[in-house]
């Protein structure tokens, strides 16, 4: 019970730091558009990961 109350206090402390502008932009989108935006971001992340792996692979092959 005390742990839950402590967590609740932490959550309340964190709330003012949440960037509401990002959320408001998302709330203007439909749920489908939000998922499409996220899927596009994940493709970007996957590409970055691939690029990072290539860098590490080529660095390894040089040593």
């Amino acid at each position: 019970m005390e742990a839950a109350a402590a967590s609740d206090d932490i959550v309340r402390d964190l709330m003012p730091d949440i960037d509401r502008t990002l959320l408001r932009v998302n709330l203007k989108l439909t749920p489908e558009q939000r998922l499409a935006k996220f899927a596009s971001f994940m493709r970007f992340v996957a590409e970055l990961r691939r690029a990072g792996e290539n860098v590490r692979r080529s660095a390894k092959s040089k040593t």
Partner: protein
Amino acid sequence: VTPDLERVVPALVHGGAEFIVIGGVAAIIHGSARATFDVDVLYLRDEQNIQRLANSLAPYKPYLREVPPGLPFTWDAKTIRNGLNFTLTTELGDIDLLGDVGGETYQTLLPHSFEVEAFGVRFRCLDLPTLIRIKEAAGRRKDLEAIAELRVLLEETEKKEA
């Protein structure tokens, strides 16, 4: 493994699986700006659905995450029946297949879900107040920032609807 949402969700729907999207992907549906790297799905634990889930994911070679490759693991209805919650890695990305979340099941959370259409299919997603409640009940420190964002989202959504 980065989830390929555009294929994971349709694979489950086309396979006839009954499930509710929860966790980070549900948060994104509600407007979250946080990234997530797996898909959390609460599934109906009846015999037919277990078979459908097994069939839907089998082509994508599910394997238990954090288990060294090569250990014997068979993805089939019997495995799902004998287990409950599975943290899987698949060719479509990481999927958490959950039969129970803190004592809540597909049946208990179904009234707290709604239908979403995306990627050419319709599927169910947990509503925002319940998503917050489930995350709070889990009591994980790592979730506190996500809970703060979800509470702000709820405030913003209510403000928008007022």
